[in-house]
């Protein structure tokens, strides 16, 4: 177990690359050196990168759950209103007139599933988070524009303050910076 980091401690090393190919090579090299918990930063979604890092989210299951909840709530609300709370007998027509409840049940299903997808994604990503140590690196502004970054962070099990920069340097990055805890 690592000790709790203090301000100014090393957060990790951040290497900058020009393209996906270089980034993928770097990821494979770091993996070969035993690093398991790396972070990559790309200006657009790149499947190969998160496949190489082994990221796989549980979001679809959450969204399914959200949709089912919405559907049950939607139908339940209409059933409760029409059958239990405020039944109106109109010429003996059935109170639970389920065909006319389909639309709102459907809309509520979609609404809840969509809200779960959006807020679930943000929550799992730990956003909003206005500041992160990597933002202190000047070159990192390019992460949202045209450059690709690889971070070997302090919480990686085989993080070593001397070996990691040497390894990253051997991959000939465009820049290499140490990131510090704020």
């Amino acid at each position, binding site marked *: 177990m690592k000790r709790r980091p203090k301000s100014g401690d090393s957060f990790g090393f951040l290497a900058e690359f020009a*393209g*996906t190919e270089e980034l993928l090579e770097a990821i494979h090299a770091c993996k070969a050196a035993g690093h398991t918990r790396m*972070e*990559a*930063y*790309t*200006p*657009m*979604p*790149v*499947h*190969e*990168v*998160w496949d190489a*890092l082994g*990221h*796989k*989210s549980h*979001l*679809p299951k959450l*969204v399914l759950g959200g*949709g089912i909840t919405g559907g049950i709530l939607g139908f339940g*609300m*209409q059933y409760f*209103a*029409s059958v239990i*709370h*405020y039944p109106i007998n109109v010429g003996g027509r059935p109170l639970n*007139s389920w065909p*006319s409840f389909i*639309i*709102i049940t459907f*809309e*509520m299903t*979609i*609404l809840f*599933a*969509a*809200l779960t*997808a*959006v807020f*679930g*994604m*943000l929550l*799992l*990503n730990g*956003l*909003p*988070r*206005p*500041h*992160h140590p*990597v*933002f202190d690196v000047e070159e990192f*502004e*390019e*992460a*949202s*524009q*045209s450059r690709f970054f690889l971070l070997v962070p302090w919480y990686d099990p085989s993080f070593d303050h001397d070996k990691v920069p040497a390894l990253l340097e051997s991959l000939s990055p465009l820049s290499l910076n140490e990131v510090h805890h704020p």
Partner: protein
Amino acid sequence: MIAPGHSLGSVTDKISSIVLRRTTPRGWFIGLGIGLLLVGVLLTAIAELLFKGVGIWGLNNPVGWGFAIINFVWWIGIGHAGTLISAILLLFRQEWRTSINRFAEAMTIFAVMCAGLFPLLHVGRPWLAYWLLPYPNTMALWPQFRSPLLWDVFAVSTYATVSLLFWYIGLIPDFATLRDRAKAKPFKVIYGMLALGWRGAARHWERYETAYLLLAGLATPLVVSVHTVVSFDFAVGIIPGWHATIMPPYFVAGAIYSGFAMVMTLAIPMRKAFGLEDFITLRHLENMAKVILATGLIVAYGYTMEAFFAWYSANPFESSMMSGRMFGHYAWAYWLLIACNIVTPQLLWIKKVRTSVGALFVLALVVNIGMWLERFVIVVTSLSNDFLPSAWDTYAGTRWDWMLYIGTIGLFLTLLFLFIRFLPMISIFEMRTMVPGTSKKEDA
């Protein structure tokens, strides 16, 4: 898809500089000025309405639904193209959508806002419009869940919410780009807050793309359901000309038809004004023209079937409504609609027309007008001669109706001009994925 010679940096530069440059072209001020002027007209019409009530509109006894419903359906329909482009074309892997999806989505949101105004104002006391929602109240009352009008409330509000979320989610990575590129501190802070601290981590992108695809999958049935529910407002009623099973599919096709026409109406001047011919290429315009042609044919099939049903049903009320529509008081509107929606778009079979920017612009305007007329014909001709000849009456919008309608066009323009100045009108990060050679393009 994208003109050759672009790199990640140049795509980022080109699109974000439209937002971040310090000088604003004069045309933008003129456009916004016109928009704001018309918003003034809108506010005047709303103020008069709130003082005097819906009596200032042209509504009368058989025609209880006039401009308000016509405009509501027209605007909602326009919105549909945005969702279609952003969600359905995404699922079908139509990569050409990338350069038009952002502003098509913006168009959706603004169109739904304009649409929503009409039913809200039509209820007469808009400050009580929340009575439409099921909420715990001291009267212990519930809204009528068996009414298509309430289904509409749920469908449209869900649609507005999901469209807004989809749009915002799509903007987050671009807000991060603007945050990192903005020079002025206030803009850095504002874009920074909107970006929610997005840093482009691969694990975030993975969840992001999952969420985005799921939203697209959810928005697809949703968009079909919205215009279906709008058509139920008519189809569930027993009025001749409304009570038909053809209504849902034909409304959905009409919505896509008018929406693409509106995207085209906006995209053509915009690509010119902002020099975006590299991103919104002739190929995009031609593809949209093909969608317009295809959906236009479905709409034509709908009109034909309406006439066929009226004849084949041998129902005297249906056939009298249909002959009234074709040869009666509103025959001009019917034939003008046929000319705008069926005859003119056939020009799109010709490749020369599909690739002529000027011709496409004019055609798109013609379709916009045609689709407004379609809703006018459906709403007004059916209501004005229903069952009892003694109850028949004609209908025309008053100047307040027209002011309200033109006013919403102003609101739409105002929002659109603000959008193109302050937000990236093309999705920057999605355009990056189109740059050749930077990545082995994702294929999921």
